[in-house]
């Protein structure tokens, strides 16, 4: 049996990993810039999962599911009672690697900080029981620094990509908890040539990433 702390760390790692890897979600244009506070961009996003809080935390005991969630691109290592280290590689290739430290702050809260990576970033996740019979609200706040030559070199000149990544990550987490999978239609058959299929994959990516307009 995995401890509650570890389950938490796994949830956080999934969120942080998906968010931290900015390249995945680059190249999308949105008109408004996120809020700024003391030099940090701040984005807050929430999603409602149709399971009680205990079940949302409990979900992450299943190692196999977690591996599917994190795919091949992240590992998690426990440092002490309440702290973990997460190492992730950019799944889109290019060898970008980053490290994060995750801390369980309490029964309903977890936070993380990127210790080494292309975008300075920190964030936290709260789990709150939703009203009526609606399950759990996963509320995430993400702070990151914008601009910088490195970000520009990585194609992250605009400040909104981590926001899109966060929304995408939350949507995936919800789907995993509720259905055990994230649907994907990228390889469905079509009458397209390889070149047309490539162009269509770009459209699919644009229609997939972000969400919650």
């Amino acid at each position, binding site marked *: 049996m995995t401890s509650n702390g570890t389950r938490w760390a796994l949830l956080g790692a999934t969120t942080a990993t998906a968010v931290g890897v900015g390249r995945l979600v680059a190249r999308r244009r949105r008109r408004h810039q996120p809020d700024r506070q003391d030099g940090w961009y701040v984005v807050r996003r929430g999603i409602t999962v149709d399971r009680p809080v205990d079940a949302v935390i409990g979900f992450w005991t299943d190692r196999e599911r977690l591996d599917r969630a994190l795919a091949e691109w992240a590992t998690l290592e426990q440092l002490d009672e309440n702290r973990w280290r997460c190492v992730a590689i950019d799944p889109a290739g290019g060898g970008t690697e980053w490290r994060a430290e995750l801390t369980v702050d309490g029964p309903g809260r977890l936070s993380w900080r990127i210790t080494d990576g292309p975008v300075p970033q920190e964030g936290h996740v709260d789990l709150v029981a939703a009203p009526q019979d609606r399950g759990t609200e996963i509320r995430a706040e993400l702070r990151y620094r914008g601009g910088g030559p490195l970000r520009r070199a990585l194609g992250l000149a605009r400040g909104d990509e981590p926001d899109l990544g966060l929304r995408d990550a939350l949507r995936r987490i919800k789907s995993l908890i509720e259905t055990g999978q994230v649907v994907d239609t990228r390889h469905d058959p079509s*009458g397209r040539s390889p070149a047309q299929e490539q162009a269509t994959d770009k459209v699919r990516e644009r229609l997939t990433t972000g969400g919650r307009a």
Partner: protein
Amino acid sequence: MRALCWEGVGKLAVRDVPEPRIRAEGDIIVKVRASSVCGSDLHLINGFLPAMREGDILGHEFMGEVVETGPGVRRLAVGDRVVVGSVVACGGCWYCRTEQYSLCDNSNPQPVFTEKLWGHSPAGILGYSHAAGGYSGSHAEYIRVPFGDVGAFKVPDGVPDDSVVFASDAMPTGWMGADFCGLTGGEVVAVWGAGGVGQMAARAAQLLGAERVIVIDRLPERLGTAADRLGVETINYAETDVLEALREMTAGRGPDACIEAVGMESHDVGPAYAYDKAKQTARLQVDRPTSVRQAIMACRKGGTVSIVGVYAGLVDKFPLGAAMNKALVLRMGQMHAQRYIPMLLDRIAAGEIDPGYLATHPMPLEQGARGYEMFEKKEDGCLRSVLHPA
């Protein structure tokens, strides 16, 4: 395998395409035995619903045989003869739990478009453009069905393929249209559109207790079929003033409930239609809402207007004042296939509904483009062309 693909506005062709494969635990692969055209496809083919890509495989109303199941599939086995709901539903979200399957949170992997357009993304739909998830459709030899346990239903022996295929879409849509009316028995119900959906809505209204059902269209063959098969009254809107006729038929009250089963390519006679058509062609309005306007004007005070015809965007000249001041109830939506299919299969088996007459034009998949042409132009009394891949 062979599949009917969209090749640009108004253009369809059968092409060789790769076969689908199991990609997730809950997937099943269905060998298609019958795949019907639907009024919704016309909106896609004609470019009124955006987000089609060249090469997309059409088709979402179908039945067939399970030939492969993912490791997570429990309810179905290879060899099962099944009908599949057009709407994809995960079975695990709040909407699925409350049987609002067409609002599923997790079945549209490409939600950004509809979130921008409508505020939230409803469920994915098979073979229904990249706005509805980018799923391949059923006008093919094989189709991958995600969440097979939720979306596919074993069909009773002895019911022919070309009959049970309509339990996929036209029947649940029509049923939901009548269900929305909250009938308690004895009502007068008017149905706009005598296509497959309107006919099934009319039958559902009868089964749910309506005393009189009045079907409105301009195509004499379709009105004739509805009268013969279902025993409904009919109005030809090309010859008769619909509002006048409905008022007279109900001694001034108006129908208790009005079901709109026409959709955004609604047709009309007169100047308002020319205005709508011009605006739609110029893309100033996506939808032509003629029949919705009429339904609202015709409906009795405090009655229900139930819309199952598909609309995508903004409409013009919507009689909100009539709806407000007459205290109408407006209900609408894409159908919750999975909620109604088991009940509908029972009713087919019991002989209460026999949708087989909708399949006026069975034909090989290879003739799919022609099948759509006949369906769109309503040639030769075509109610629905049903394609057979094998």
